[in-house]
């Protein structure tokens, strides 16, 4: 059963505190309740964390984190923190093409990239069709849609 909102916030807060408290050059694993936490620090202030069950492979989890960053990097072109902040929904979409329900969905970087591209194109085309259908007046009044 899923946690309440409050519990979720507490989990995030607790884990954040633990990870941020780690001295530099420690190993990337720590134990928290019954989970193994794997974390990787990217850039100065960006952390990626994952919670694993007992039977999961921690070293592989590091590779998973690494792969996700690579995917972001490929999509945004030299990704930086601001990219992720201002395009958080894209970060989620990429994650959803890579993992599902806690398991790896696609092991090919290429395949994930292709899926994102095609889905984005679908959105673009939809937008263009909308534009075409509008009158000049509507176009002026409504402004553009979500994608800038």
């Amino acid at each position, binding site marked *: *059963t*899923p946690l*309440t*909102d409050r519990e979720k*916030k507490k989990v995030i807060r607790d884990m954040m505190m633990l990870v941020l408290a780690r001295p530099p*050059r*420690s*190993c*990337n*694993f*720590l*134990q928290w309740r019954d989970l193994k936490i794997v974390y990787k620090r990217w850039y100065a202030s960006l952390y990626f964390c994952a919670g694993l069950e007992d*039977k999961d*492979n*921690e*070293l*592989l989890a*590091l*590779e*998973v984190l690494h*792969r996700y960053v690579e995917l972001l990097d490929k999509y945004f072109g030299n990704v930086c923190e601001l990219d992720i*902040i*201002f395009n*958080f*929904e894209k970060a*989620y*979409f990429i994650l*959803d093409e890579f993992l*599902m*329900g806690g*398991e*790896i*969905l*696609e*092991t*090919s*970087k*290429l*395949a994930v990239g292709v*899926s994102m591209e*095609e*889905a984005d194109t*679908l*959105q673009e085309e*939809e*937008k263009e069709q909308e534009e075409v259908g509008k009158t000049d007046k509507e176009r002026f*009044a*409504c*402004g553009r*849609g*979500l*994608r*800038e």
Partner: protein
Amino acid sequence: MALPRMPAPIRLRELIRTIRTARTQAEEREMIQKECAAIRSSFREEDNTYRCRNVAKLLYMHMLGYPAHFGQLECLKLIASQKFTDKRIGYLGAMLLLDERQDVHLLMTNCIKNDLNHSTQYVQGLALCTLGCMGSSEMCRDLAGEVEKLLKTSNSYLRKKAALCAVHVIRKVPELMEMFLPATKNLLSEKNHGVLHTSVVLLTEMCERSPDMLAHFRKNEKLVPQLVRILKNLIMSGYSPEHDVSGISDPFLQVRILRLLRILGKGDDDSSEAMNDILAQVATNTETSKNVGNAILYETVLTIMDIKSESGLRVLAINILGRFLLNNDKNIRYVALTSLLKTVQTDHNAVQRHRSTIVDCLKDLDVSIKRRAMELSFALVNGNNIRGMMKELLYFLDSCDPEFKADCASGVFLAAEKYAPSKRWHIDTIMRVLTTAGSYVRDDSVPNLIQLITNSVEMHAYTVQRLYKALLDDISQQPLVQVASWCIGEYGDLLVSGQCEEEEPIQVTEDEVLDVLEGLLVSNLSTPVTRGYALTAIMKLSTRFTSVNRIKKVVSIYGSSIDVELQQRAVEYNALFKKYDHMRPALLERMPIMEKTASNGPTEIVQTNGEAEPSVVEAKHPPPVTQPTNQANDLLDLLGGNDVVPVIQTTVPTKPASAGGELLDLLGDLSLSGIPPMTAYNKNGLKIDFTFERANPNPNIAVITIHASNSTEADMTDFVFQAAVPKTFQLQLLSPSSNVVPTLNQGTVTQVIRVLNPQKQQLRMRIKLTYTHKGSAVQDLAEVNNFPPQSWQ
């Protein structure tokens, strides 16, 4: 005529920019509230155009930690929209805001169902993703059929998503597992790695959950050869840019296959044999310079250890772990320690070979590694290496962070209990723990230690001396202080008489001892529990020391203590002094050896002043400190609190034969060696009984307690008991509880004799008794020959 339009809601990125300019929490909150209000009005207008933008903004604010529940229904509307853009944000919102606790969660079901059958695969993908990440059991039940259909499609994009969605369905509704079985038939013949990987995950889930499934896949589907083949191809195939990670082809898939092989091979000889070769190949050929190679090796090792692999392979695996331990990369060392911990039970000897490396890891700077190393070290302790290991672990205890101390102390105690090479070593080790980590030991350590000390009879003098010296140094660590107080109360006589055999006895006077104990009572560092221990210890010394007046004074002072517990004790002890002084020696006697079991066996104090109901008296068990108090209580209850001194019949019959029987009953299961007591002397109203205990672990020492009782109408004062044994024996006579054997069996004088009988000869003793009775001096000699055979064999 058109109504005046509200201004278009601000765009997502603009909102993000704005919020980030806020300099304080309050400023941010204000911005958020303003925007939320705008979004709410916009929602009320049911404006399709901007719903998507508004929900996106809401999701951002939700990520920051602000409430967003009023957007839940809007997510549903987005999902129901025809536009892909809307659906994309809608489903994301659903995943973030609409977990199964929410009422509107179920409303998604119909939309998801429709979208699972959508013409556009990306829409189908969204639906599968949402269902597979957070679908409720009901939703899974409703939609399992659709998922199963998609599992059979030839579209690999959908197939892989359907597979993981199926995994989620099975996790939520395990009974539905069966329906996915047909679809798994040719999953592994796919070329697409995404499908392969998710299929392996699905198969793993099924095999883990159902032994029937597991058996089915082993036998009927011949899963193992298929997996071996795929794995082999991955290893042997040339460079594939799409799946390459640092020169290794699709490590994610390799690891997942290894994990499934582990499950298939566990406990099954045929399967294990079929995978032996590939495991050996992976173990020896995988490149270890990068983390990714080590990740695969790690999984391989886990698999080898879990299945029925041949011994050569197992040794290979443990050696890989041994190499990991020496790796510069902390992560790899950590993982090695974790794996070794898992295998230490089954492959103990192999892991022992790496013991010194493991012990070195105790000194690692990394906290996670230290913890694992500590756990593993304790698992490796055995009778052979206990001394060396304990040295390292005690050193670790000294220097480790507080977060480790409690666990380490417990571990030391447990290991010491199991493998202590000698009593003295055991007690020294405990002392070391108490002095270095005394405030971190668990609560139950104190009674456990007291029990241990009590049972190490020949170490009493040594123990109390060491504890006394420790107290002189430091009274801040409560468990140490409590154990020390208890021991001083119990063995204070040994302390002042300087009887220590193990080391140089110290010179200490009764007053000095009492100074220390009184110091504990007044110190701010002492907890109430500790004060209780100290007071009781002082009281017990009243039968072991001569400075009774000083003790009486202390006890009476605390009769008006603010601390209720102390006050109660003091009042009762006072009563002992005043009204029940004849009972005092018996009540405050030396503790006998206690039963090891935690549950209550009757703790026996053989009291031949004959309580009418010994079971009442002995009802209470450790913490032994409270025992005298409880006994005092019980006795006072029995006596009804009035001043009449009852004539108490002795329940100990005079005939040795039946005495043995009845006393055995009284003793219950305490009599460790089952040696029956005996009457050594019975003349002129003076009766002397002997009870026996075996000193652990030295079976050559017999501990005899004499109980002298007087059935005449006058006290026997200046009572002195002496004993002599033949030359082949050694005898030690400890101090008596008193010099007065009270009249009419109102109390006993007890005294402990320890006899060392290394040649196991028949025990014989000559005793000499002197006392004053009715004004005249009496002296008698007697031979005691009727020792039960068990006392000297």
